[in-house]
């Protein structure tokens, strides 16, 4: 790809990553969540893939699949946290600990420190989607030849 495209990609990639992280982090407050934010971040991976060619990213294949598994394991493990009551029970909500603040009533800008296990699950799903979607895009790119054009 040309210098213009490379330069634009270098500038824009951190912004995409930041936006994706924001969407994941505020998943329990605003529209969004793990999948949407993960898809945004994966689009950054797709951009890098188009600009720099699949070969240069091929080394990250194993790392991505490991991260994907870890995200899925984290999700199921978080669901297992509630097994004292029932599976998927939100034990952290309202407990006062991590993400355990009570939700204030009435219109408000939203507080990050609420939601119990939901934000954690969002992060787990986000990790899984970033890695999963990224490796899908990467593998499809590699199958097609993936040369540095």
């Amino acid at each position: 790809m040309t210098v213009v495209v490379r330069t634009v990609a270098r500038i824009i990639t951190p912004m995409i990553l930041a936006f994706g992280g924001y969407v994941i982090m505020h998943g329990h407050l605003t529209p969004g969540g793990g999948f949407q934010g993960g898809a945004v971040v994966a689009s950054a991976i797709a951009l890098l893939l188009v600009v720099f060619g699949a070969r240069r990213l091929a080394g990250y294949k194993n790392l991505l699949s490991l991260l994907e598994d870890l995200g899925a394991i984290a999700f199921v493990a978080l669901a297992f946290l509630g097994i004292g009551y029932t599976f998927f029970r939100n034990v952290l909500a309202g407990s006062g600990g991590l993400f355990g603040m009570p939700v204030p009533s009435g219109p408000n800008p939203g507080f990050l420190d609420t939601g119990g296990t939901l934000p954690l699950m969002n992060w787990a799903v986000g990790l899984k989607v970033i890695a999963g979607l990224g490796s899908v895009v990467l593998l499809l790119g590699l199958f097609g030849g993936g040369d540095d054009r």
Partner: protein
Amino acid sequence: MIGNFPFVVCMILIALGLWALLFRRNLIKLAIGITLIESGVNLFLVTLGYVRAGVAPIYTYAPPGAKMVLPTPQALTLTSIVIGLATTALMLAFAVVIYRHRGTLDARKIRELKG
């Protein structure tokens, strides 16, 4: 009457997707047909949850007493989109593998399994 318009669009999308599945030959176009059907169904689900003059179902943003659109169909749609993403990715991957083995994407020529 105008309220039914989205449902008409859903049916048009589904019909278009089915048309592609029935009469197109290229495997990629078949995959596109399936995503079209999926979009139609997803639009149908979102439309189901619409409440006239409703606001987005965000508990902390809505003014008191405001009508909200139903959040459940949106959650269903999201799940369905995720599943659709997985199926589409899988189908495209298989299309790539088929192309590498046969050198064609024509569904009429990819008929090793028949009879």
